[in-house]
């Protein structure tokens, strides 16, 4: 049984635009994603496609003006606001992107200690710092004093000390040098091998492919395909969705062909398939109704032409 299931999740915001008008912005629409213990699922999509909001929705920490619908299940149990609150930091941990997510006026050691739920916080924090090769002096530092690598390891230690079963890492790799990046990715593999479930939210498909078990391709606020990592091979024949194929072929080591056009803005989504305006296979039927998620060959896809 999957440890975490997200079904039909939609998130929208009410926003004032110029003058007196107010409009509804749909940032995530009918999104499906499942996460198994011991596996790494990489959610891959372009920057600014609302991926972080998926993480915030799972944790129940979206801003107040967000309208959310759909269900999120943890261990088969449907979550609501209060169960989400009790799981945060205990069962589900977030690893954020940067030091902006640390309190600027609090020593980092103390911040890691606040994540410890049982036992001696100081001991746990020092043990984790040792394990991640952080010097003990780091615990007395303030976030602005941390180097990139130190910051990332500090953020990681908050998740380790919490003993969470599900770890959601939001863009953990950008701006890191290759060595630190490799180390970071290995840390995630370690988590999964120890029985945790890891959701890796990233725009970096290449590094995701090196460690993930499954890849969820995210486009304009929804997952268009969930495929095992082995399918990303050759010319992308094994992939199911035209966008995944195009994304794969756009990589430098493959054909390096960019996808024409750009992702639609959340306030101006097309009515039918979200990818239809840029799709070479699109037929008039594609623009009528958003296709449902269907299971094909051990993966999931949202395309009526998929095989």
């Amino acid at each position: 049984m999957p440890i975490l299931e997200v079904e039909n999740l939609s998130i929208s915001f009410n926003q004032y635009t110029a003058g007196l008008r107010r409009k509804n912005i749909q940032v995530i629409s009918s999104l499906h994603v499942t996460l198994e213990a011991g596996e790494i699922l990489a959610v891959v999509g372009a920057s600014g496609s609302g991926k972080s909001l998926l993480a915030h929705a799972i944790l129940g920490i979206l801003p107040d003006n967000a309208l959310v619908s759909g269900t999120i299940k943890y261990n088969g149990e449907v979550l609501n606001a209060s169960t989400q609150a009790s799981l945060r930091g205990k069962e589900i941990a977030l690893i954020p992107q940067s030091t902006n997510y640390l309190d600027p006026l609090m020593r980092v050691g103390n911040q890691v200690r606040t994540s410890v739920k049982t036992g001696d916080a100081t001991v746990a924090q020092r043990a984790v710092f040792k394990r991640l090769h952080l010097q003990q002096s780091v615990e007395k530092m303030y976030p602005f004093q941390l180097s990139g690598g130190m910051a990332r390891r500090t953020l990681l230690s908050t998740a380790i000390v919490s003993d969470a079963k599900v770890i959601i890492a939001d863009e953990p790799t950008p701006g890191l040098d290759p060595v630190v990046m490799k180390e970071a990715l290995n840390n995630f593999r370690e988590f999964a091998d120890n029985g945790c479930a890891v959701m890796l939210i990233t725009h970096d498909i290449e590094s995701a492919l090196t460690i993930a078990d499954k890849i969820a391709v995210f486009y304009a606020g929804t997952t268009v395909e969930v495929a095992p990592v082995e399918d990303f091979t050759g010319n992308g024949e094994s992939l199911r969705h035209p966008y995944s194929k195009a994304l794969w072929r756009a990589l430098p080591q493959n054909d390096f062909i960019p996808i024409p056009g750009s992702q639609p803005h959340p306030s101006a989504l097309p009515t039918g398939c979200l990818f239809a305006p840029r799709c070479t296979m699109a037929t008039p039927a594609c623009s009528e109704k958003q296709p449902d998620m269907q299971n094909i060959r051990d993966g999931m896809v949202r395309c009526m032409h998929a095989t």
Partner: protein
Amino acid sequence: MRKMLLGKLGIFLLLKGLRMLTLLIAICFISFLLVKNSPIDPIQAYIGADMLKVGPEQREKIAEYWGLDQPVMVQFLNWGSALLAGDLGTSMIFRRPVAEIIGERFVNSLVLMITAWVLSGVIGFVMGVLSAMKKDTWIDRLIKWYCYTLASTPTFWMGLLMLIVFAVWLGWFPIGLGVPAGVLAADVTIADRIEHLILPAITLSIIGVANVALHTRQKLIDVLASDYVLFARARGERGFILFWRHGLRNVALPAITLQFAAFGELFGGAVLAEQIFSYPGLGQATVEAGLRGDVPLLLGLVIFSTFFVFAGNLIADLIYYAVDPRTRESRMI
């Protein structure tokens, strides 16, 4: 390392001091020119009601005594050099050295201002925090309404209301004067002083709360919307713990700084409150000096109040410099 820290602090203070000095010289010069060009005749102001009995020769003698017959620049230099020697001149109303009057009155005003400052700071901060934590609830709306209303309330009218309610209707407090009339200064008890302090202090506090509260509210709302609070919530923190760990430390510093930077407002409020409650402080002296054309006293008060405002700003800067780790520890690396 410690030495370097002190060295940097020294440079910081030196630069601040230099800026203060240029501003102060300019203020002295401008205020001096202003009052010299005022249509109020200083001799008449000095002599007051006895004007008719004074002949032209006596006038001249008085003018000579005050140095009024010399060119303005000379007068300024005379006044300036006396100022540097700590001599602010002699008050025309009180017939005593200005420095002495300011010193005496400052003690009175200080008690009033500190009381109001602490009260408004603490209450305002708590209100702001409460309002932000309960954003968009009736508590928040009530506090916001109170603050916006108070921000539009004339201080002197609030003082009058206090007088009407507590002094006239309830009769709990005397209507005026810092000390009871007809009692020797030595016989004035502390209880007397406190009795006369309460109403003006409350008036100033009620008004002063608005600024701190609204500022703290906005700041805490920003903090609560920040990434680090989002992450803290993701780690399971909420409610009071969240505020205690992350809210307080990020909001307290700006609030304290704001309070120190608001010394000018405080002084202005004291001018009005002291006038209404006949409280013998600096504010009342300022009004008296302005109304009765006491040029030396007015100049002395302008300079003194500038010092007062500057002291507040300097303390605010120093607190930021010393407390915020982003400025404190980056200097040590």
